[in-house]
């Protein structure tokens, strides 16, 4: 028998630096779908996972800013039965105006993400915006 499994362990499954271009959205969906399938989400949940990631990446491309190399960052983590994919862009937020814009522009996308995911987390930092999308194995 191996060492006891730490139930709180977080496993980083992978990272993807994606060119912030609409034509690369298919790649983001494929990445999300593969991660969800490998993690063991059922077929419908894999589709929902990829749908939500597509919405988050679309928002990042439309409203956010890429890093110095023109990329936005996707990373996948597993926490127990929960799979989380984070989408990070490097938009610089100043004051409340961008927050208000979030409500208007990203509102619909967020509502849809929240509808299909178990949890959606938005972290607005001084130099980046991260959306974390989580879904559990049933």
């Amino acid at each position, binding site marked *: 028998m191996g060492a006891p499994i730490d139930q709180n362990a977080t496993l980083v499954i992978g990272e993807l630096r994606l060119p912030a271009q*609409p*034509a*690369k*959205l*298919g*790649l983001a*969906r494929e990445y999300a779908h593969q991660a969800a399938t490998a993690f063991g989400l059922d077929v*419908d949940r894999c*589709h*929902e996972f990829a*749908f939500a990631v*597509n*919405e988050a990446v*679309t928002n990042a*491309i*439309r409203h956010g800013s890429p890093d110095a190399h023109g990329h936005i960052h996707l990373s996948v983590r597993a926490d127990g039965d929960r799979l989380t994919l984070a989408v990070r862009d490097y938009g610089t937020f100043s004051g409340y105006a961008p927050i208000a814009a979030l409500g208007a522009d990203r509102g*619909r*996308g967020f509502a*849809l993400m929240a*509808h*299909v995911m178990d949890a959606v987390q938005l972290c607005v930092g001084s130099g980046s915006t991260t959306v974390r999308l989580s879904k559990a194995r049933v």
Partner: protein
Amino acid sequence: MGFFYIGDEAPAEVAHHGDDVVVLVAGGELDYAASPQIRDHLRSRIDAGMRRLVLDLSGTTFIDSTAIGVLVAAVMQLQELDGGSLAVVCAEENRRVLRIFEIAGVDSLIALHRTREEALAELAVAG
């Protein structure tokens, strides 16, 4: 990159339904990258005088909120133009796309039909 297409069905096959009826076929992955071309294509048919549009999504494997937003905008534009309409065709087996329409909650705005015949029959009643 995601693959998608949109085009007109052979006009002769739908002509008998009325001269303002057009059947469009879109397939592949309808996302933010594809949305501008979908919007332009719908707009060009409306500008050409078409008022009853059928959009067949039977070959569509994915649709996102921006593409659905384009369809909603077309519906609203058509409604303002003497009660025009857009009917979307999506087969029962295309669960992935039907599920996204369900999530988007646009069933009160966009009429979804299982077959093209059903959509055309509905247009005939409406027209």
